[in-house]
């Protein structure tokens, strides 16, 4: 093999692998990414049932209901709208009524969301960032006021 042929072989291989990788990435970008929405977003964007998404907001007070075998329903709200969530499993330690939550799953109908995972805060100072941003936008943000030391 001449020098030129060897170089071409190398470039050919590199090009082929990169092309495959690019194809996979582009395909996966269409298929596997999940959008974050608040209940109000879902109404506003008219998200179709069957769409997989991450739903974020606050757990509405008084809506958490526990059924048999760890069947749980609760409502997620963002100040403008709320959406009922079904979940089967263990809730995270910091799941609380009135606190921020992110649920990932499928929108079953305009009024029902089936979650396969539920995330709450990592510690008492932390609210999922997406939720904090949404609440700030809507003027419901109180996190910092609560966290700041009370002056009298």
């Amino acid at each position: 093999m001449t020098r030129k042929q060897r170089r071409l072989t190398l470039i050919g291989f590199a090009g082929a692998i990169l092309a495959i990788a690019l194809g996979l990435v582009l395909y996966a970008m269409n298929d596997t990414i999940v959008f974050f929405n608040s209940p109000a977003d879902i109404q506003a964007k008219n998200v179709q049932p069957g769409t997989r998404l991450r739903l974020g907001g606050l757990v509405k007070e008084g809506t958490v209901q526990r059924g048999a075998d760890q069947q749980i329903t609760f409502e997620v709200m963002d100040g403008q709208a709320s959406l009922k969530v079904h979940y089967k499993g263990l809730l995270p330690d910091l799941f609380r009524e009135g606190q921020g939550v992110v649920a990932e799953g499928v929108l079953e109908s305009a009024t029902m969301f089936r979650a396969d995972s539920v995330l709450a805060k990592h510690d008492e100072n932390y609210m999922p960032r997406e939720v904090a941003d949404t609440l700030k936008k809507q003027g419901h943000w109180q996190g910092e006021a609560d966290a700041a030391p009370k002056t009298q």
Partner: protein
Amino acid sequence: MLVEAGHFALALALGLSLIQFIVPLWGARANDPVLMSVAPATGLAVFGCIAFAFLALTMAYVTSDFSVLNVVENSHSAKPLIYKISGVWGNHEGSMLLWVLILSLFGSVVALARNTIPLRLQANTLAVQAAITIAFLLFILVASNPFTRIVPAPAEGQDLNPLLQDPGLAIHPPLLYIGYVGFSISFAFACAALIDGRIDAVWARIVRPWTLGAWAFLTLGIAMGSYWAYYELGWGGWWFWDPVENASLMPWLAGTALLHSTVVMEKRDALKVWTILLAILTFSLSLLGTFLVRSGVLTSVHSFAVDPERGTFILAILILFIGGSLALFAWRAPMLKQGGLFAPVSREGALVLNNLFLATACATVFIGTLYPLALEVLTGEKISVGAPFFNFTFLPLIVPLLLLLPFGQTLAWKRGNFLGTAQRLYAVFGIAIVVTLAMFAFEYGGPVAAPLGIGLGVYLVLGAFNEIVTRSWSKGTPLPVAWRKAANLPRSTWGTVLAHAGVGLTVIGIAATAWGVEGLATVKIGSSVKAGDYEARLERVVPRTEANFREDVAIFTILRNGNDLGTLESMKRLYVTRGMPTTEAGIMTVGLGQVYVSLGEVQADGSVGVRLYYKPLVLLIWIGALVMALGGGVSLTDRRLRIGAPARAKTGSAAPVPAE
């Protein structure tokens, strides 16, 4: 007093680093050995100062000195001693101090290795190291000072985040940082070579042990982090494709590529420019990892509360070093003498392919990790790129690499023979196929991926050891002779074999997760939850009180097909100071598999939600990583690579070294 002294020592270290940066560079330009030898002396002094500062902070933690803000925010007098010490780096300020401590530690080791490294290379390398030290010391002193006092001092601290109160914190960050920061040495050597405009096989031989060491530590750090997340978060998963995990995986992939390209450079004097670029990219990804994790761009357990000033500062450091080194590369790399090209079917050809796959896989992880950030900045749309994306893009790139791995290891240097190589692997192929078929028959109707994955793992392990067999045994060799031959093979060969076998073990562990079973139920005392053949029966719930938390301990009896395997404890804890609840999963190891029990809330009627998992062979995932790191360690003990054994290496290299 000690705290102020520590603060002062940091400032002193900054001053010394400035000298370490300027004087040796100047000396190298002027070819003045006196100026150049300032580098090792200042390198050691900088390490001394930073080590003192670190000790001062540790003392403040150990004695619970609540006049220091950092201690107040992250410690508590009732916390066990081990968490007081590990709490030093369980927060933003302290972790940056640990980072720079390890950076200067590596600098001082380079300084001490003066006999193995030419003075000029050493001076330039230490100067580049000093530049990194300056940036991070400035960051610590200006934007994240751990020594800030608070007046009046509170009587008690706010305790450490309970998720971090775990032996994992004592081990995981230091290992990971040694890995991350270790690549700064390869980076500094690469920049030094670019500054000097000279690079050769000797350079590769000097740099390889550093890369190898950093890689081994990073492997351990990632494995430890993975195991920690597995038992602490209570989700039973060992890898979540979380951006923070990806941040550590990217330098690992790039570092693995670097490790292999350095071998080509050392043996064949080729791939020089690419190796330099990889060294720069690997450390850039380490810096990016630090930035992603510490700047608050990503929210996770790892991002401690941070303010935007710090994010901007770290971003500036990032741009300066990544941009600067790439600019240096663009300017100087064309001046480096190119190495030769080589036959596609050869060991070096296979290593190029390895580099292509690893670099591309690293790029897909990079896109998946940063695309959501970019999209949010550009359009405000929030998306999450999770496991499906990475499984779809990363696996198709890694599986071919793994299939080719035993081939590459068996191919000869310069000109390999494809058929001949395949012939040497016949037995390995055969066994792997038989194992795969046996798995299919055994688990009829089970998941398809599992037997294929197990077969691949077996192929990798046997393929790795095949090298030892073919090099020490042929038909008719008596076993003792073969044994002696195998024992006398170079340590670096054994290192390669172990590292590759470790990959195989991890693959087996990952494949076996497909056979995992889980069950979910609300149980009362005396009733049980089932998963496959396994069953966990709740015996009783007892309250317990420790120094800084209260817990409810649920005691389960684990049964397999009705046979008692013993008891297991799973806890719900409440850390009193922060009022934060945590779940401690109960884990029982059965062979290489584990039974894993995670608790939900205890309900008013005394019943409790329980998730039971059985994970066959799961331990192999981490054992494989340990074996990989062990391979790195064994390879480091190879005489030719040993740091500080220059004289022997010189005489040794006069004798013909067998190709490996």
